[in-house]
């Protein structure tokens, strides 16, 4: 009796493998959200700088073009708005690609973890 139990049959091994896999997935899922929460602060600041930086770059490019082509202030105005648009697009892209935590792009996550948020 005892010997029968000790010798693992292939089915039992397979079952054990399945259970291990399941356990691994739940462990991964459990450890993800914690990392996410700690990133919320950094994420907020990331969005701000992303927005501001694009506007600054837009204004700088417009100002430079105006100075070069002597066309004050038209390029400055045009590129200010382009910069704002780029900033908004940056922010939009971050929130779209990362599911809100700003760290890991969703498309690169394994499928088991991908659907655990929202």
């Amino acid at each position, binding site marked *: 009796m005892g010997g029968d139990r000790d010798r693992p049959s292939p089915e039992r091994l397979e079952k054990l493998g399945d259970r291990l896999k399941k356990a691994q997935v739940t462990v991964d899922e459990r450890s993800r959200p914690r990392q996410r929460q*700690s990133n919320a*602060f950094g994420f907020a600041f*990331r969005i701000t700088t992303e927005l501001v*930086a694009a506007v600054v*770059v837009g204004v700088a*490019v417009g100002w430079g073009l105006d100075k070069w082509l002597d066309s004050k202030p038209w390029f400055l105005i045009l590129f200010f708005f382009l910069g704002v648009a*780029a900033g908004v697009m940056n922010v939009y892209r971050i929130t779209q690609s990362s599911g809100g935590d700003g760290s890991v792009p969703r498309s*690169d996550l394994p499928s088991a973890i991908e659907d655990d948020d929202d």
Partner: protein
Amino acid sequence: MASTTSQGSEGGLALDPMHQFEISRIIPIKIGGLDVSFTNSSLWMVLTVAAVSALLLLGGKRIVPGRLQSVGEIIYEFISNMVRDTMGDEGRKFFPFILTLFCFILGANMLGLFTLPVVLHPFTVTSHIIVTFALAATVWLGATVYGFYRNGLGYLKLFAPSGTPAVMLPLLVPIEIISYLSRPVSLSVRLFANMMAGHTMLKVFAAFVVALGWAGVVPLAVMVGFTGLEFLVAFLQAFIFAILSCMYINDAMHPSH
């Protein structure tokens, strides 16, 4: 300490919170009109590299790790996982670069929080925008050059997302280019602003502690909390810098959105 007390009690903020960011020459060197002096900033960069190298190299190679070795292994595994998560197996070849980048920024941020009174004035290398901009520009230029080297002119597809109607292109391409150009700016400003704001705030509160006498216990308690927060920020900013570098390099490898 005595002199700062008398200064502080007289004029509120007689302590200059920006003094900590001043650069001073330790060994003046001039090469062809260029000032390449060894400054306190250079000194702290050297110290950072030395500290990080010591941590990673001298931690030991035991099977059951000690404390230092554990820290080194945690950093190594953390960055290793991050590189795999963001860039896949292909990004493996950038792992040494990202690890170096992360360790340098983390080391610089952390060292700036420790004080060695009298012996050495603490200096946070990453609280100067030119330092963070140099780091960000290196990443950005490297990723751009690598993108063109790998994809040829196909890298320009990054500026024209697939599925865009041709009518929209004249509007969208400049926006995408500005967005691309803003990467090194946002990357460097984020790190620099976090470090400088945090250190200035700590100094201002430290001045309150001195100026308020007995009531200074209150800002002192706040400072303890802020110092903890600063350690979190120091780590977080190094992490964000490293992970964004990964994502930019990943864009260079696969230039379609």
